[in-house]
């Protein structure tokens, strides 16, 4: 948890120091009505955004849909694991010596399966039972295995593994028997173990892979959704001309900050709900999502969702202020989403490849791609707490810079109507 707690504490402490220093610099200790009015205006705008978004059908349906997908992602693997439990039924025709029977049982145990022996009076009966599914495999007089359908080269199911193991091990037992070895020799051969295999990289749990995967997808889906809300919301205020009424009472930066905060809080609430739901469901059904470093990856996902939203929301708000029609928004949205898509695809690729590359480590320090890359690095156990903190601080610093530029673009563009505002025009003196 130190990955998350330390950066959060540092950021909170830095913010407190910064606000205190600003207070000392800007005004005496007397009450500051302007500050109260700024806070109040930002709060009012944020509350309106939250209320309108939470009421919307898109939010309700979207949340339910995501919860259903998360539930499926947790429950289906658990059900799949549980479905291995029914024992394999082995039909036995003729005599099966005790030593062979022991070999069959140890073979089943080796592939993680259980067995149930069924006595078959004849080969004919065994074939009938195979066809009806009453037995899975028939052993004919310890000499031959009979199964329902031929094995394919790519079949890696437990059934296929068991058949192959039985064929090999029972055949080996027959060979040992035919060699007329002494008891001690037979026991030595029977006790033969496969050579241990070790890897030079540290081991990873499968659960972390799936958690990283879920986290990266969650970040991408939510950043796309909420930044689109920002983009469309700003554009609609401009196109509906309500912006002039609003800006006659509040400053552009207050309006912009309120909007970013309001939509951001809705995003954080939805993400927290999803994570809490995922953890609770995992615990309830016994999923391995709550084991190992998976909870850390989930919390890291939340942190980077917030940081990613904070970075991109200003960019999208500035872009929204330059458009006043839907088609203009679409032409702006594509280039804005490219760094996000790049980070997302790279992170997904790394999760499936199984080990972090240098490229992923670089992307984890770049604010546009860090929200996708850093949680994956955490999942791999390839990021120390100070690396995590460094990335957080870089992201926060860049977000402050981006917010300042975005506020300027917003202020200069939001009241300009009559077509899409070009970046060149925003920074030219003629259109201050």
């Amino acid at each position: 948890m130190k990955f998350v707690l330390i950066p959060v504490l540092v950021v909170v402490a830095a913010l407190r120091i910064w606000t205190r220093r600003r207070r000392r610099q800007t005004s005496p200790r007397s009450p500051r009505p302007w500050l109260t009015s700024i806070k109040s205006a930002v709060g009012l705008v944020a509350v309106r955004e939250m209320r309108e978004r939470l009421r919307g059908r898109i939010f309700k349906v979207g949340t339910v849909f995501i919860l259903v997908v998360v539930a499926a992602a947790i429950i289906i693997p658990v059900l799949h694991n549980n479905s291995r439990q029914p024992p394999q039924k082995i039909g036995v025709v003729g005599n099966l010596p005790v030593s062979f029977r022991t070999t069959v049982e140890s073979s089943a145990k080796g592939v993680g399966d259980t067995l149930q022996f069924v006595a078959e009076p004849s080969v004919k009966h065994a074939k009938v039972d195979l066809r009806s599914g009453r037995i899975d495999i028939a052993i004919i007089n310890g000499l031959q295995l009979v199964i329902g359908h031929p094995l394919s080269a790519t079949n890696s199911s437990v059934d296929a593994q068991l058949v192959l193991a039985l064929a090999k091990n029972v055949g080996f037992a027959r060979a040992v028997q035919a060699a007329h070895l002494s008891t001690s020799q037979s026991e030595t051969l029977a006790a033969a173990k496969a050579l241990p295999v070790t890897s030079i990289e540290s081991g990873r749990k499968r659960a972390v892979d799936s958690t990283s995967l879920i986290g990266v997808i969650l970040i991408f889906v939510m950043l796309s959704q909420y930044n689109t809300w920002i983009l469309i919301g700003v554009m609609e205020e401009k196109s509906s001309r309500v912006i002039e009424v609003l800006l006659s009472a509040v400053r552009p930066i207050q309006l912009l900050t309120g909007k970013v905060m309001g939509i951001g809080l809705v995003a954080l609430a939805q993400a927290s709900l999803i994570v809490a739901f995922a953890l609770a469901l995992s615990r309830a059904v016994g999923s391995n999502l709550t084991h190992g470093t998976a909870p850390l990856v989930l919390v890291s996902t939340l942190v980077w969702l917030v940081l990613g939203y904070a970075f991109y929301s200003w960019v999208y708000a500035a872009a929204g202020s330059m458009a006043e029609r839907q088609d203009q928004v679409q032409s702006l949205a594509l280039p804005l989403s490219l760094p996000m898509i790049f980070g997302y695809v790279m992170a997904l690729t790394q999760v499936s490849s199984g080990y972090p590359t240098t490229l992923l480590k670089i992307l984890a320090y770049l604010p546009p791609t860090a929200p996708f890359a850093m949680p994956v690095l955490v999942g791999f156990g390839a990021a120390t707490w100070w690396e995590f903190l460094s990335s957080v601080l870089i992201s926060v610093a860049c977000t402050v810079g981006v917010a300042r530029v975005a506020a300027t673009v917003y202020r200069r563009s939001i009241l300009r109507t009559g077509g899409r505002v070009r970046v060149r025009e925003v920074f030219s003196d003629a259109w201050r």
Partner: protein
Amino acid sequence: MWLVELSTSTSSGILYPEPMANVLHLEGLSRRFGALTALEDLTFDVPSGQVVGFLGPNGAGKTTTMRAIFGLTDLDAGVVWWNGGVVGQSERRRFGYMPEERGLYPGMLVGEQLTYLGRLHGMSANAAAAAAASWLERLGIADRAKSKVEALSHGNQQRVQMAAALLHDPELLVLDEPLAGLDPSGIDVIGEVLATQARAGCCVIFSSHQLDQVENLCESVVIIDQGRLVVTGRVDELATSGPRRLVVRVEGDRSGSWASGIAGVTISEVKGGVVRLVLDDDVDSDSLLALARGAGRITEFVFERRRLSEVFREAVG
């Protein structure tokens, strides 16, 4: 032509006007958009207790002026004063504004939207809700408080917009074309509201191209053209300003020949037996009356007031 005389202000903005109660003072406003001059050294006052009509042809700079009051456009030069102080954000929160291009959240409920806008102007939630209900009642759309704005007719949306400008009891009301698109009853309602606000001490300025309505509603007008002030003054003074104009109808003399050749009297129009005369200052109207009587029975003899539309046309060419 009247130009505002300001004893304490200059276009340079160096001298500060003396503090006055509820007076909006625009001083030397200038704004260029590329090669286009929107405002050029525009200076005028809007006193409290009056409804002031803000007139000018299309593109004269009315909307830019109104937006400048609210800081919605940057100025190349000039200052907007309110009661002797430069207008800032805290003053603007006490102003009411109805922009030319109407703007409300289309999908938001009328009552909630007004409450929200009231709160942005510093009202408490309860006060804003009560004021919203009161203004909707007064403007005749109380039953639409729970409707979405987009479900309202154009006229009713206009009334909601008006309520948004009024509900925080503003000290200054700036309305850009508030009468556009309203039916006669709507114009009556808005006119009554503006008069009431002005009587209560509010400064009211609104732009319009409906000059007859402006003449009925306003005590004063400001006329600008190409970003410059061309006329300002009280409507009744403007109506009686300039050379006296006399309308005379004499039975039996439809050509107005009785008036020709009189020193200081110019016949401006003869139409349908009615003769319009323009009199120099030294012309005695009693003498004219006697001359007209000599030509026949007088059925009309009246001094004509100048219509605002005439003042406007003369002012902007």
